């Protein structure tokens, strides 16, 4: 019952998925633009009514906490209250959560994606490189599985059963699809014009020896941490590989006290699953 997926079939069927949120690329492109302003972010946010409503809601909750009785309606004031980095995080998370929901993916898939996104973000913060690339790499690392589940639900279920029985996931996917979810994700990320480092993170997050790129390394290690901490509470969660070079690139020394890092990842994952929902 093996299907032999081709890049052509993968990209052809993308049109049947909900539209990928263009705001993701727009926001990532502003990170490299020194002239990007609050005004530019306001324009991006204002294009999407759902995101606009959530940003105003979060800003109003903060205003209420500060006992400011006036309801905020001005987006630029709301954004300045929340702060640029937080707004970027919220917009990226909400838009990708909406994409995942419209694609009818399970809650487990999304919770695992948030866990890996948060872990990658915290690793980026420790290693002093842009956290938004790491967040998007983590949120999208399993996007190939979303495609597989949507268009080949029976084969996808067979893979899940094989993994539950102890088979390694990439081997099981290749057996049923001819490709694995990292291959499918690379095709999707390229088709959506995502930044090269994010596409590489999607493609190589399961590699035993991933390329020496910080976003790739953060996503690879984040996947291991999210599974080790059992953040999605799924029986089939497994740590299979963890690259020494990826850990070294991120400056991780496992003999150090990791309790604060793990606690922060665990608490923020629960918090952001609520915020992005």
């Amino acid at each position: 019952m093996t299907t032999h997926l081709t890049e052509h079939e993968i990209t052809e069927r993308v049109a049947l998925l909900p539209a990928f949120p263009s705001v993701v690329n727009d926001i990532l492109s502003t990170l490299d633009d020194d002239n990007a302003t609050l005004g530019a972010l306001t324009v991006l946010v204002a294009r999407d009514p759902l995101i606009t409503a959530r940003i105003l809601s979060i800003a109003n909750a903060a205003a209420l906490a500060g006992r400011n009785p006036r309801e905020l309606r001005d987006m630029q004031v709301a954004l300045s209250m929340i702060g640029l980095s937080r707004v970027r995080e919220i917009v990226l998370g909400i838009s990708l959560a909406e994409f995942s929901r419209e694609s009818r993916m399970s809650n487990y898939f999304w919770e695992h994606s948030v866990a890996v996104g948060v872990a990658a973000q915290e690793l980026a913060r420790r290693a002093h490189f842009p956290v938004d690339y790491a967040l998007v790499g983590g949120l999208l690392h399993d996007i190939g599985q979303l495609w597989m589940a949507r268009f080949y639900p029976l084969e996808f279920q067979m893979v899940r059963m094989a993994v539950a029985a102890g088979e390694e996931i990439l081997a099981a996917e290749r057996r049923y699809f001819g490709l694995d979810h990292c291959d499918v994700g690379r095709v999707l990320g390229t088709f959506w014009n995502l930044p090269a480092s994010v596409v590489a993170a999607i493609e190589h997050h399961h590699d035993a020896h991933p390329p020496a790129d910080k976003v790739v390394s953060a996503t690879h290690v984040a996947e291991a941490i999210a599974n080790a901490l059992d953040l999605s509470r799924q029986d089939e969660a497994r740590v299979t590989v963890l690259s020494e070079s990826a850990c070294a690139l991120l400056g991780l020394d496992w003999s150090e006290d990791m309790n604060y890092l793990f606690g922060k990842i665990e608490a923020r994952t629960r918090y952001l699953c609520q915020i992005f929902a």
Partner: protein
Amino acid sequence: MTTSKRLRYLPISEVVAGMVLGAPLTIAEHGVTNFALPAGLTLSDTNIRQIDLRHGEFACIEEDDTRSDAERNAEWAAAAARLDRIFSTADRTRPAVAGLYEAVLAYRKL
């Protein structure tokens, strides 16, 4: 007899007045700390509103560990068994894998 303490990391939505900070709580914007509360502080409603206002997301809380030795050991054994299952297909002779395993095991003993 002194009661032992344990640390828990909670999303801010689960933090309530009367809880005690187990680690300093700092909130930074653009790499600059603009809000800080010390470890050992008993949180008030005002503190929690201040954290909300600055979009703090989590706190490390210290609480009394009321478990008996038997309960504590049973919880640790269950956590270790779950961790063994999660790492069942990994090569734990590799330093990074072994390091992550030991670090998570230590975290579960908080």
